[in-house]
């Protein structure tokens, strides 16, 4: 660090499976096998990373054999890749939850019947099937399905516009109302935010809720969410690990209201807060799981958001690539790969 000063980050050293060779700005990063890697012999001699922003270019390079592996296959290319016979598509449920936040403190959303109605009104199956082309799994709440804290008895809100209208009428909005929905054009873990939000907009229109869509650039969007002026907003969260606290506490505990923390829905439910707090005080995982399961049941009855989906991560690779596995943490791990 002394030798390189402020540039020390450009001289990486480590004990991993690969060694740093070179970095041509904007073109490629080259790594070379570490022959003395301690865990197992690495089979690849050299790894070249290339940044290719344009989806079509990435796909073309893969299909013409100029690349071996791409991550983040855009939904529209999933079908094409599966039928091309030239590449293998890999899918795995990741650690994201994509939700449509609702400002719980603003009228008319402070009435939980309205929030329930919005959940019934949105056709999540259609979003996953038609917009995401199957690269999402329906969400029942913030906790990742099939993890130890997930309440498996919960069902995703069914698509039931009739019921949504009824609930809105009960809450005093037989003719619906008008509101706004903020959407970032892109952003970390946001899947296809604008297309997804457009479907949601038309679903809500069908039950009488007129939504004005406002799309924003990611940086501007994050700043605006701190103003607490949002009504509806699209956002995604990646859990650092499968502990339910990693998702529920920051996103939904009332001590985490924005701008202090990331509870941008300004959700507050006393019993829910209490359960989350209790779960932090016990160490027994079984007991914690019970507390979290009750908390999840509360979220179904008193929904803070419209639950949409959990992203299914995608990667595609050439047929000659063997032994590649997607890692749930979103890290791109290439050390297990060998070439046929």
């Amino acid at each position, binding site marked *: 660090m002394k030798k390189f000063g402020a540039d020390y980050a450009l001289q990486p050293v480590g004990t991993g499976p690969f060694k740093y060779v070179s970095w041509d700005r904007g073109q*490629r990063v080259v790594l070379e096998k570490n022959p003395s890697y301690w865990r197992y012999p690495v089979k690849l001699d050299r790894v070249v990373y290339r940044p290719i*922003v344009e989806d079509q270019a990435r796909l*073309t390079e893969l*299909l013409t054999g100029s690349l071996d592996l791409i991550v983040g296959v855009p939904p529209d290319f999933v079908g094409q890749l599966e039928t091309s016979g030239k590449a293998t598509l890999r899918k795995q449920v990741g650690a994201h939850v994509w939700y449509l936040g609702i400002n719980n403190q603003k009228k008319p959303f402070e009435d939980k019947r309205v929030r329930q109605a919005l959940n019934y009104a949105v056709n999540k199956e259609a979003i996953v099937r038609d917009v995401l082309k199957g690269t999402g799994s329906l969400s029942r709440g913030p906790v990742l399905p099939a993890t130890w804290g997930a309440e498996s008895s919960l069902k995703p809100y069914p698509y039931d516009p009739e019921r949504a209208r009824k609930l809105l009428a009960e809450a005093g909005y037989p003719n619906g109302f008008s509101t706004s929905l903020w959407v970032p054009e892109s952003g970390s873990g946001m899947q296809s935010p604008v297309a997804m939000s457009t479907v949601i907009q038309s679903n809500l229109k069908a039950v009488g809720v007129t939504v004005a869509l406002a799309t924003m650039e990611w*940086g501007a969007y994050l700043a605006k969410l701190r103003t607490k002026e949002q009504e509806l907003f699209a956002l995604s969260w990646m859990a650092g690990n499968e502990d339910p606290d990693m998702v529920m506490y920051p996103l939904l505990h009332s001590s985490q209201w924005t701008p202090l*923390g990331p509870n941008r829905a300004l959700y507050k439910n006393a019993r829910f807060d209490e359960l989350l707090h209790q779960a932090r005080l016990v160490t027994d995982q079984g007991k914690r799981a019970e507390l979290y399961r009750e908390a999840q049941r509360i979220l179904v009855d008193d929904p803070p958001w419209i639950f949409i989906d959990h992203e299914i991560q995608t990667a595609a690779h050439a047929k000659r690539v063997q032994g590649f596995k997607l890692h749930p943490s979103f890290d791109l791990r290439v050390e297990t790969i060998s070439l046929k």
Partner: protein
Amino acid sequence: MRRYLVRRLLLLVPVLLGVSVIIFMVLHLAPGDPAEIMLGSQATQADLARLRAELGLTEPLSVQYVRWLGLVARGDLGRSIWMKRPVLAEVLGRFKATLVLTGSALLLSTVGGLALGIASATRPNSLLDRLSAVASLFGASMPVFWLGIVLMVIFALWLGWLPASGMFSPYGGGDLRDLLLHLALPAVTLAAASVTIIARLTRSTMLETLGQDYIRTARAKGVVERAVVLRHGLKNALIPIVTVVGVQAGYLLGGAVLTETVFAWPGVGTLMVQGILARDFPLVQGCVLVVALSFVLINLGVDLLYAWLDPRIRYE
């Protein structure tokens, strides 16, 4: 002439200063800041405050600007917030790739535009002239990113003749042939709109020039048609064409942003877009300064060309 040149070069200073003030203001007026974007949606207010202080973003804007200006005066464009590296080296490295791309696009569009324009002007209303008119309309109305993707699908995906992205092959390569293969699609994409503009303008100015009395005189003297068109016609028609080529050079530098993004060309355009999205103030300032400087220098070059083309033009 020398006095003129010195004056023009001195004028660069206020122009670049103005550009830097404007871009500094615009960047800071845009909502969101680098700390927010670096830390993402999971950041707490405390994290943000800490990083902002570390990056020197808590100081008043005027102080930040003057500090940056002080660095620039010493030939240092500061350090990128996002890449943690000296901006100048970063920008110059990428600018070379942009110059290769815009330079070849400019060459393509000038040569192609002149050839098409002259051919149309010498045979007005012929089939070629009409085809070139249709092609111009097409070329001028196609968005760069769409044309780029279409060319990529045809020549890289279907025919497999050309690579789809990058400047060199990831393995080996690196020679001129490799560069030219990678350059073909982005250069044609970028040149498409300009070639049509230059062609249409060449056609109309050439038609006007070829109708002049001195052209009739030249023909009457028995000068061969080729010399009539090129020496007597084209040279006199060049002044407006050079002006437009100069404007197009600037336009291509700006238009390169989209082409570079589509074809993963490692130029200053992609760097600038990344810088803007990350609110990397020093990086964007550096990119803009370099692009603005080249724009101004191109204009100066065009002005000097006038005098060379038409000896009646004098600068004092």
